[in-house]
């Protein structure tokens, strides 16, 4: 999906300057470099320009102009993405939607909130709190990430086992296709006529349309929520406990795991009170009416004990419950205390393989000589191994990348997927070649063309080219194992 820049840089910039006020257009390297990556710092690229529109008319004008001139446009929210989905295009405009941060309406009767795309995830719940409502999907980055980014990535959270992903909680997206044409996907009714294009746009990594307004469903805050912290002497046992809970017919409100390395990482910041001696801790939440919670907590504790939990602690009050979660939610960046950089992968596997996967990762740690704490959405089987490395050491970088790639290959081999919620972006293009065959990848490309025939909206992401897959195929043996994992390959 290469895009041809028709006009030369100075002409494009001059044209942009005519439609954007001065402080809304950044062009010098000094100003654009801080935009060269999102939350994935391994891949960086300076854009030709950064546009920071303040009005919807400016967004449309930028889109029309870029469309006319064949200039790529990459939308960006808060830049917390972990897959390089918002990586700028060297010859393109990075379209920051951060200034659209108004909450337009919170409707208690309809249980909806309508917001601009730059509104932070947590800000929606804060605005809805006085009505006793909240927005359920809660990515760990919820303090910072925007709803526009959430829609683009179909973000999940620690409570999505019971409450669903972004997809399940967004009713309507209003926006523009790359040529500046107004479009609306979904509706405030339970469904909309025609094909369910909302399902395509959610999770499309900003490649199908630019989101201008989102209406989300709000849910009533449960009367009570309590969280169990269960300790295990072995990671595999903790993995099995997850399957045991589900098999017992329980759908916990949240079900997360931290291994020992991960809990030791976050404890100094979060003071969450994790059992630092346990090989793994499970956080297992129940919410509902007080009676219901009491019943469920008892049931869960019983299952956990039968699954060899060595210690079970139930949050005594809301403050303690929030502490348990604070540790979990701050886990990735806390890795910055232990190493200059971390590489977080996002494979999802069938729950029954969690234990086995964790053991494989332990073996990889030894092989690559890098440590890898694990903290993840256990209930969904969505892993987040944090490969710790030193980004000023090229060898360490190469080992980290190979380590991450091997985890993803292993996820596919176990019947899972290379990304559960962070997206493919630039980062997992290679592994897309393993997960999908060429006809399916071509079908993705055709979907892209259906929305963006010229291919200028966030080009080059998600769908690997034929050439790339051929290259990648040469490097790996069928079955996922790399012949010489110690060698850098990127």
């Amino acid at each position, binding site marked *: 999906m290469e895009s041809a820049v028709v006009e030369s840089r100075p002409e494009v910039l001059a044209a942009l300057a005519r439609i954007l006020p001065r402080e809304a257009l950044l062009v010098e390297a*000094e100003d654009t470099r801080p*935009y060269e990556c999102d939350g994935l710092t391994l891949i960086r690229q300076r854009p030709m320009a950064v546009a920071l529109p303040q009005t919807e008319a400016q967004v449309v004008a930028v889109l029309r102009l870029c469309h006319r001139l064949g200039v790529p446009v990459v939308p960006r929210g808060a*830049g917390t993405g972990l897959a390089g989905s918002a990586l700028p295009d060297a010859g393109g405009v990075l379209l920051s939607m951060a200034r659209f941060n108004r909450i337009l309406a919170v409707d208690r009767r309809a249980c909806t909130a309508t917001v601009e795309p730059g509104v932070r995830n947590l800000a929606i719940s804060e605005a809805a709190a006085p009505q006793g409502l909240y927005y359920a999907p809660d990515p760990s980055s919820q303090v910072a990430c925007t709803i526009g980014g959430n829609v683009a990535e179909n973000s999940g959270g620690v409570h999505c086992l019971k409450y669903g992903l972004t997809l399940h909680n967004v009713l309507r997206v209003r926006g523009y296709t790359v040529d500046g044409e107004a479009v609306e996907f979904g509706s405030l009714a339970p469904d909309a006529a025609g094909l369910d294009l909302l399902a395509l746009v959610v999770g499309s990594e900003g490649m199908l349309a630019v989101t201008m307004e989102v209406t989300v469903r709000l849910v009533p805050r449960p009367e009570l929520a309590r969280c169990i912290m269960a300790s295990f002497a072995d990671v595999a046992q903790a993995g099995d406990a997850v399957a045991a809970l589900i098999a017992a017919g329980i759908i916990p409100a949240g079900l997360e795991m931290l291994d020992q390395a991960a809990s030791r990482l976050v404890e100094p910041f979060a003071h969450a009170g994790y059992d630092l001696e346990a090989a793994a801790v499970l956080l297992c939440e129940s919410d509902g009416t007080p009676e219901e919670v009491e019943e469920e907590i008892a049931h869960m504790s019983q299952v956990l004990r039968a699954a060899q939990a060595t210690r079970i602690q139930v949050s005594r009050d809301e403050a303690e419950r929030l502490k348990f979660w604070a540790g979990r939610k*701050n886990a990735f960046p806390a890795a*910055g205390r232990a190493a*200059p950089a971390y590489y977080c992968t996002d494979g999802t596997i069938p729950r029954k393989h969690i234990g086995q996967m964790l053991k494989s990762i332990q073996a990889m740690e030894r092989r690559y000589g890098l440590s890898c704490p694990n903290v993840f959405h256990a209930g969904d089987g969505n892993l987040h191994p944090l490969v710790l490395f030193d*980004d000023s050491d090229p060898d360490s970088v190469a080992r980290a990348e190979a380590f991450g790639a091997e985890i993803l290959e292993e996820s596919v081999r176990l019947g899972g997927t290379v990304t559960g919620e962070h997206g493919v972006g630039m980062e997992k293009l290679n592994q897309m070649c393993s997960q999908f065959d060429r006809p399916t990848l071509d079908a993705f490309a055709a979907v892209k063309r259906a929305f963006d025939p010229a291919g200028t909206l966030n080009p080059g992401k998600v769908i690997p080219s034929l050439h790339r897959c051929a290259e990648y195929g040469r490097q790996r043996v069928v079955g996922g194992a790399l012949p010489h994992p110690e060698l850098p390959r990127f």
Partner: protein
Amino acid sequence: MQTELADFARQHADGPEAADILRACVHCGFCTATCPTYQLFGDELDGPRGRIYLIKQVLEGQAPTERTQLHLDRCLTCRACETACPSGVKYGRLVEIGRELLAERRPRGWRAQAARRALAWVLTGGAFAPLLAVGRLLRPVLPMRLGAQLAPARAAGTWPRTPRARRMLLLAGCVQPALAPNINAATARVFDALGIEVLTVARAGCCGALRHHLDQQAAAREDMRRNIDAWWPAIEAGAEAILVNASGCGTMLKDYGVLLRADPAYAAKAARISALARDLCEVLPPLVAALAPRLGPAVSTRVVFHPPCSLQHGQQLRGVVEGMLVALGAQVLPFADAPLCCGSAGTYSLLQPAVSATLRERKLAALTAPRPEVILSANIGCLTQLSGGATPVQHWIEWLDERLR
């Protein structure tokens, strides 16, 4: 984050420290959410993560222009980002180093330099009090807001002179005695009631923060050394602590050790000063029980407490004052966006008036939403910034002092 220091930065005394801080940043963006200027401007460059990048560019040897300067100037140094950062990035320290290096690499124009010097001189030297008096006289003809903020000072009342067995030094401050002389006196009275004598030393003056934040690091170190010399005899004579009732200054005192560590003559003493520095709320809570019987009923019980950035982020003292107020019978009302700066930020309100005014408006709206009878705070800058609205503003020690019987 990976950083390749340029030669000049590698040789600079603070270069390696800056590189270490940069390395801790993993670019997660959690900090942007709590940054007041990011909320206003919506530009990465006006948020901590972008500023870190700008500083990184300077350290890596790229020539900064006035735009890097602008974005660093707009930073309030409120350090809310530090509290939010799970990775432990010491942004406050980094931006200090960044500003110092930037001033070296790209000196400000002479006008800007002169203005900054004049500001420092006025505020810390002897000229502030007389100028303030003139301002107050002119109040009726000044623009609304400035006029409002120059409200007449509350009278200081008497300073207890009873010698006590326990003695603590008090940082008197520079602008505070002129703007709100009652705060120091109230401090002395409350401690006197607890059997602690509060001493001030005439020769001690500004803590150095003002000049430090106006790019006058050398002059700031002079302030520090002068204060150390002034306090030293009292410390040798057994003063238990150096009390600070302006949290901005407290943060500075606690940094003396770091800032003078390269000065062989003062490093050890500076470290001792930092170790002795205490915000009031670090000393009073254990004594609350002893104080309670000495207190009468409060004039106003529905209060909000605006935690100054220097207290909640700079010194990481969160919830302590609130807890104490509750223990003393106040109804401390919750309000939105407590981690956000009020826009005062030392001289920031004078150098970035527009940003400062917007932040003040937002903060006042948030603080008054729960309809308090009084707004309490703990730093002279915030108190001045927030005053002039419909709700009275006080230092919490004054609120306490009023109840002494």
